[in-house]
């Protein structure tokens, strides 16, 4: 085990997989010479050379198309977006080319590739740089979507994503990049895509979250523990496929649930998880399921307003007490 940051875990995952499989390569804006806008590819161009760590122009639609074509032709590209906000231009290739072609070709054409970058609310970067796109991509058949909340999961899930034959969307988080965790050094360490993780066991209520919200969920659970409230925290890890079994098992035990997301509520991740609970746990529910989401406005730049718009640890604690009638 080594104590490394999330951004180092991302770098290690990519480097290990590139050493393991020469078909794997990285492309994106500033990934080579600048070693990543968020330093997620530090030292990689030095190790693998400009043939496999490729700087692209600021043209997401174009370079994503090149990457999808490369994947269809037998390579295994990793595409880094400086942020998922900029990948809006590339959605035609992510969705129409990468996600659908396997189905439309009757399974003859695969797109084994990873689209990755930071997602969600960072810190005072305003509306056009702060959106959580989780629900957009988890809506698409043909894609897999992962959203790791710590360095350990980031490495295990990203390595699994690179080895996966389906196109995988990896939603990272700027605030998490600097956080450290114990990460296995084993080159073969992977985590299964489609499995959620019970990050903390509890008996009174299930708190379901992903990415940055899973970190806030654990903080809230620690605070509530001191008040005698036992919170079970589920870190979804994967959003598509969604680990229905783990959700159902936990809610059937605690009989109450709160879902967290940085997304807006409408048609969001919370809505999907609530539907899973309603479909599978109706007779187990002892309280209405609650979702906590970003307020339905473009996220303000001002720090105080930004804080008000996004569920914070105190808000989560308050909501849980309310659900429990305490």
């Amino acid at each position, binding site marked *: 085990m080594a104590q490394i940051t999330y951004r180092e875990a991302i770098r290690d995952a990519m480097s290990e997989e590139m050493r393991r499989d020469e078909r794997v390569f990285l492309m994106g804006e500033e990934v080579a010479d600048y070693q990543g806008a968020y330093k997620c590819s530090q030292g990689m161009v030095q190790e693998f050379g400009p043939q496999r760590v490729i700087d692209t122009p600021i043209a997401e639609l174009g370079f994503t198309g090149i990457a999808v074509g490369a994947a269809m032709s037998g390579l295994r590209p990793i595409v880094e977006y400086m942020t998922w906000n900029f990948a809006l231009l590339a959605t035609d290739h992510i969705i129409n080319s990468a996600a659908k072609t396997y189905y439309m070709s009757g399974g003859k054409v695969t797109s084994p590739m990873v689209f990755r970058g930071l997602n969600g609310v960072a810190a005072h970067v305003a509306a056009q740089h702060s959106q959580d796109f989780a629900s957009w991509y988890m809506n698409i058949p043909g894609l897999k979507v992962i959203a790791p909340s710590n360095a350990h999961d980031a490495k295990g899930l990203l390595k699994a994503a690179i080895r996966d034959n389906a196109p995988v969307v990896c939603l990272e988080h700027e605030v998490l990049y600097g956080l450290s965790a114990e990460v296995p050094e084993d080159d073969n360490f992977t985590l299964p895509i489609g499995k959620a993780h019970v990050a903390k066991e509890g008996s009174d209520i299930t708190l379901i979250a992903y990415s940055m919200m899973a970190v806030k969920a654990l903080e809230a659970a620690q605070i509530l523990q001191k008040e005698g409230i036992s919170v079970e925290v589920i870190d979804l890890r994967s959003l598509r496929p969604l680990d229905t079994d783990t959700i159902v098992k936990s809610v059937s035990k605690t009989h109450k649930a709160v879902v967290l997301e940085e997304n807006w509520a409408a048609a969001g991740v919370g809505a999907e998880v609530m539907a899973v609970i309603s479909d599978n746990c109706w007779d187990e529910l*002892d309280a209405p399921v609650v979702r906590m989401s970003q307020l339905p406005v473009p996220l303000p730049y001002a720090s105080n307003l930004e804080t008000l718009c996004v569920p914070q640890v105190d808000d989560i604690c308050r909501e849980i007490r309310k659900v429990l009638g305490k």
Partner: protein
Amino acid sequence: MPIDILMPQLSPTMTEGRLARWTKAEGDKISAGDVIAEVETDKATMEVEASDDGILHKIIGEIGADLLVGSPIAVLRGKDESVAADYTPTSKAKKAEAAPAAAAPAAESVAPVAAPPAPVAAAPMAAAVLPKINTTGATAAPAAASHSTGGRTKASPLARRLAEQQNVDISTVIGTGPNGRVVAQDVLTGGRTAGAGRPITRMADSVIKLTPMRKTIASRLTASKQTVPHFYLSAEVNMNALMSVRTQLNAHLESQKIKVSVNDFILKASALALKDFPAANAAWNVDSVVQFGNVDISVAVSIDGGLITPVVANADQKSLVSISAEVKQLASDARAGKLKPEQYEGGSFSLSNLGMYGVDDFSAIINPPQAAILACGAATERAVVTDGGIDVASVMKMTLSVDHRVIDGALGAELLGRIKHYLETPVVLVM
């Protein structure tokens, strides 16, 4: 082809039966019409007859098992037929609701309605057999149910499921969740409920499995007490004249070994009074009131394991002597578990008498869907004031429980007054 013998539906309301006894064994030769088993239904113990000839190949239903109507209980085969070892009978059981009885033509003045479900029980006898066990928590009067608005109880799905499993009426549980919602904890801690919940059992206690009859008594009387708005009217009856007539009558009938009881007089008096006030000979029917064309009186009879209310039909038209004979026969059939459904279903009014136990007076629970029940205590000698003087008289106290949805106070009072009048004018009852 082997023939499957299925649990028969022996009464319109029967959904499951408990196998009480097999009267034939595997290998026995069976002719159509032979009694092969006895089944305890929600009302009585009834015989199951074979409908085909053959050999009783295999008995499937175990004694004491509760089986849904349509479940296989045995397999019949032909005399020389061999049945495959892996032959499995086909179940036709379904979790059906009680099949509604066919529409019974009512009196001309009212629209025909489905026959009301068979009444079973009258009140205090059921209470008398309740186990005396310490219950958890308070048995205080129910608090104002703030969670229950407009007839719907706010309860979580889990709380509802737990309540159903534990046979707790969710509307009696006081909700402590947000917005007064009943949550699982409220159902589990019976102490917060208004009278429901489970007792604490200790080593010395025994837990008795519910018989179908006990389940029926429990559900019907709970529903009655909780949903029927009861009110009670009491009156004292001077029984001197009646006692004297009864003594003379019984002396006269002694050679025929007939003995008319006080209860027979009360039954006849109630029947005549109901005939006089047809509006009281009625039942609530959800969106209408049914006025019965006949006066059929249900009589509460205490039997082993519970009670049942056989019906004396057209009691207003029968003589005291024939009422007496009929009640005796019904009571003895009831105790033998031999009543047929048509003998205990229907009835427009119930009579419950605990006078023979020395009870002074009591209030009975209405036997749904009926609208009234008369509860009679013992006739005892008391000092009464007559014409300014004090006399000794035999006095009986009776209490009429009335469904206010059907019968208002004045009508109930008139009915009770008329019963009192007939009891105090007993010659009319002997006519």
